[in-house]
């Protein structure tokens, strides 16, 4: 059930666990793939890829919703650097996860889910991830 329909039941999206764990936060959504290496500043969490829809916006503390990663495999270490610098997303939701984000999420212990219809999650939505389940609060 969608929010605002007058029904209290929250919408749940079933996905696949990439990196286990539970977290909750505000969604930051993009339809574009993200290159963490070179595309996100590891010290501030700001997206710095020129022309990216999220350019200038920080991923810090967000549930980051994007189709998949792209670019250099060093991006897994960028996610780890974001985490250690306290500016990582608190969770990630992908349409189809690939190696860079999967490995980055596991070594950084950031909960991550994929195989979710990410078009249903809008920037600003309150979202909870618990293992393979995404709940729109």
């Amino acid at each position: 059930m969608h929010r605002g329909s007058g029904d209290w039941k929250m919408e749940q999206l079933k996905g696949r666990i990439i990196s286990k764990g539970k977290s909750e936060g505000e969604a930051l959504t993009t339809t574009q793939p993200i290159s963490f290496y070179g595309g996100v500043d590891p010290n501030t969490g700001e997206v710095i890829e020129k022309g990216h829809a999220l350019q200038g916006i920080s991923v810090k503390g967000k549930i980051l919703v994007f189709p998949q990663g792209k670019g250099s495999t060093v991006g897994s270490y960028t996610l780890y650097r974001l985490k250690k610098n306290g500016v990582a997303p608190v969770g990630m939701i992908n349409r189809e996860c690939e190696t860079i984000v999967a490995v980055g999420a596991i070594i950084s212990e950031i909960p991550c889910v994929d195989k979710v219809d990410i078009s249903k999650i809008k920037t600003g939505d309150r979202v909870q991830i618990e293992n393979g389940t995404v709940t729109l609060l």
Partner: protein
Amino acid sequence: MYLTDEEQRMLDGEEGYAARKSMEILAALGDIFGAERLIKVGSVQVAGVSYHNLGDAGLEFLNELARDGKVKVLTTLNPAGMDLENWRELGISEEFAAKQNLVIDAFTRMGILISCTCTPYLIGNLPRYGEHVAWSESSAVTFANSVIGAKTNREGGPSALAAAFVGKTPCYGLHLDENRVPDMHVQVNAKLAKLSDWGALGYAIGKKAENKIAYITGIKEAEVDELKSFCASVVTYGSKPLFYMQGITPASETVQAPKDTVTIEESDIKNAYDNINDQVSDIDFVCVGCPHCSIKEIAEIAELVKGKKVNANTELWVATSRTAKQLADKRGYTQIIEASGGKFACDTCMAVAPLKGRFKALATTSAKGCFYSRQNSMKTKMGSLKECIEAAVTGKWNS
């Protein structure tokens, strides 16, 4: 994915932290890509070595793994952010060097060979035809899959380390013959006259075969150095890390050229140069060795610079493995190149050293080198070894 009892014990943490973390990575990748099981690998090549890319957090991660992680197979290392001996001469700061050395210490504790080269196949990590390996470093992965005929996916640093600690990798992607079938026929009609033409060819094919496996025909001769350069370029500019070259690469007789055909003409090679080259004439940095120079290439450089002087406003770097340089020392090539004012950059390269802001314009033989140097805000010129050495001597690009 099916796990053996031993693998499950590692995943449960019974063999320590590094083994558990490694199994978590391998099991997740296996599930994502639908692998049925793990398979043994003959060797591992680990990327993600430069402190420039790792930062303190990456160093911390490696130190955590090094507490109880030991590699189970032959494992070699990609280039670091600096020459591990001659870093001062290359303008690397004390602070960076100290951090880079801590990264190297962590890899040493894991039992990894400190080879620091993107050409492991030239220094003793040479798989056999058909052997499963787990390599990172896209140019080496492409060389292993195509020129050698070994089987590897394009691993990242952590997934390669995981494979080294377990001695296995999930069996998916390019480990399976059904995923190694070429899906595009590329007929090359252009003439390839010099080394950089192979980089240009890689650009042209990479763009046309985006995320595809090319079956290449029309090439009669290819030296290892030319294939090394082509491998680096074709995967940087878009193809899968596997190609077949009829009559040149060993598996080319085992598959058919697909019907879907594109051609590469002289105009495509010219177009590649036009895209890779910027408008610039003053050159302050000449770097050859992307991928790392073979001993044969070092000999050619020595021949070209003999008796000449590198321009006062230009630096000439020869990027290579320590192993190749040791041969060059014995043969006298090193002395010739250093007498001209050229510098050896062993263990490192222009793609991973902290070079942003240090140079304005690069001349190189490498299409891949141009791609990464543009990310370091340099203007780029690609040409033959002769043109690059001329640029080093005159400080200008002439053509």
